[in-house]
């Protein structure tokens, strides 16, 4: 086995190397899942309790209080379906975006493909999603909600994939920026909060009447993710133009994030 260490010359994705380190994905993900709820009395229950309480609060204030429409399905189902995906995105982006700094001690001492850290953060938030998804299934049964199984099997996974791709793209981009410009530590929470407003989590896009606002919402990669996911449950027609814009934005996010991360990752150890 012979290899060279030299200044970086050309761009590569380094997929083969990632594959060599595949066990590390498992260990990083496992560590974060395991550590997350250590020394909490309720422990693992928090995975489910957090989105559940959010749903209850949203249902009370927006569903009951403000009477926000919900595409003809019970508001709790509507908001929960959006919320669990949104949590993947918001938690994933926040953790991945800070990942290089919170793992600085490891980055400075050991080499491994740095992409493992943001990918593991996404995997951890997907793991949380799976738990919450079980509750969601439970809710579907509780409301005796009838779904179209074929739609469900196509659009629900699609929504999850788009969420993962967007989370990964945004997370890696922010992670790489954050290690260089520590301003992003403050930008990330703000950005996540602001994005929630233009994501149809608590309201359906149909209540937006202004065309321009619709397009702005569509620029948000999570718009397509949540809309597709919901389409697997509620049979409401979707605006393909808006979906396509959002999908494009998601893919762009992914490419830019990955590219910028790979391009700068060599110097992370010097900056951390």
């Amino acid at each position, binding site marked *: 086995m012979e290899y*060279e260490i030299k200044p970086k010359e050309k761009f590569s994705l380094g997929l083969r190397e990632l594959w060599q380190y595949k066990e590390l994905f498992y260990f990083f993900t496992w560590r974060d899942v395991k550590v997350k709820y250590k020394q909490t009395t309720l422990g693992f229950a928090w995975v489910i309790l957090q989105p559940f309480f959010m749903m209850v609060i949203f249902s009370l204030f927006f569903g009951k209080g403000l009477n926000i429409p919900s595409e003809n399905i019970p508001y709790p189902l509507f908001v929960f379906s959006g919320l669990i995906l949104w949590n993947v995105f918001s938690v994933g982006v926040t953790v991945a975006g800070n990942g290089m700094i919170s793992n600085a001690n490891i980055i400075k001492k050991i080499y*491994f493909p740095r992409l493992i850290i943001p990918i593991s953060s996404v995997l951890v938030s997907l793991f949380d999603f799976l738990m919450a998804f079980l509750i969601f299934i439970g809710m579907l049964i509780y409301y005796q909600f009838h779904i179209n199984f074929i739609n469900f099997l196509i659009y629900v996974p699609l929504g999850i994939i788009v969420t993962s791709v967007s989370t990964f793209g945004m997370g890696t981009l922010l992670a790489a920026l954050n290690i260089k410009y520590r301003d*992003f530590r403050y930008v990330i929470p703000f950005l996540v909060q602001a994005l929630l407003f233009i994501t149809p989590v608590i309201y359906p896009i149909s209540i937006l009447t202004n065309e321009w606002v619709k397009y702005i919402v569509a620029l948000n990669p999570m718009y397509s993710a949540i809309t597709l996911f919901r389409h697997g449950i509620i049979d409401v027609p979707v605006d393909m133009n808006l979906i396509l814009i959002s999908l494009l934005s998601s893919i762009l996010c992914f490419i830019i994030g990955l590219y910028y991360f790979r391009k700068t990752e060599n110097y992370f150890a010097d900056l951390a």
Partner: protein
Amino acid sequence: MKPVLEIQNISKKFRIHHENQPYLSLRDSLVSVFKKSKSSSEDFYALNDVSFNVNAGESIGIIGKNGAGKSTLLKILSKITPPSSGKIISRGRIASLLEVGTGFHAELSGRENIFLNGSILGMKRAEIQKNFDAIIDFAGVEKFLDTPLKHYSSGMQLRLAFAVAAFLENEILIIDEVLAVGDAEFQKKCMGKMEDVSKNEGRTVLFVSHNMKAVQQLCKRIVWIHGGKVVADGLSRDISDNYLKTTSVNTSYGEIKALIDNLPSDSDFKLENICIKQNQQEGSQLLNGESFQIEIHYKVLKQCLGLRVYFDLCDNDENILIRSFNDENLEEIPVVMPRHYVATATIPSNLLAAVSYEIRIHAGIYNVKMCTPELGIRIPIDITSSNKINIAYSGDTIRSKISPFINWNNKLLTT
């Protein structure tokens, strides 16, 4: 056979900004797009054209002062940071131990941490599984395997960390002063393991340390780095002597005064003289049957908290036998006023053996800085025996490093 590591013209450049900014801020970057920044910057070479080859099975010590570029070299070798130019050809898997216990997580149990740390170091899960029993045996923590790491003593954490690293199966091991910690017994165990790795298992070891004794014990060859360049590369015996000479100020008694006058100046402290006296006589030939004094004359230039002078008494293997501070009897850190001082230490009679020692005089401000060269002002002293120990056996030389007067009570038992 081709060398296992070929290091060819490696340089690493850093840009130093003369404005004090530890991190880039977005604003500065944005502003500098529009206008040329006024802050000057200059290039600093942490490594400058470093080349050497390492053969398979060799163990090489890399020495040099703090800031010489050793750590940068290790970081490049372990791919943590890329070189600015040059290249390294490696013909084996490199494992780097720049720190013990990288990635240990306090909330996870010992067992979990072994797997986590092992995989971060690049071990396959199967490899860890295979060596698992040997690892816990080496670390001696079998009882606490399922206890969270945060309840481990720091010694236990260290043992566990080293144990995981000790079972890495990579062909090339890079080790950075991991032995600087831990108690003597464990350090010995680690050294034993490392010797085993390099001598018996025939793996290649690059070992960075300040501890010349450890380097000499482990490595036949030394690469000495200074100012980012290789200044010497050869047998460890030859180089370590040279290295020790240059890293400290070593002098014979008569030259002390001249040497002190040539010390680099310090803003807080000025050493004025050092005298060694026995029976009011100055000199470095001393008798062990009588006490002698070490006088340190110095001037404090500014009011300082915790400025102290001290001496080390070392044997000729560089072991520090005694270290004693001029203010060690005080209960609080003193505020030292700008004056002239003489601090006198009295070494009691009947303590030292009839061998050569070295006294190293240091001064420093606690937690702030040293005011003397790294290894102090080194003054060799010779002790002759006058304390009538063991005189009946005149041919029998005492082999101990010190020879204090011990009260023996020999009783003859009848019946």
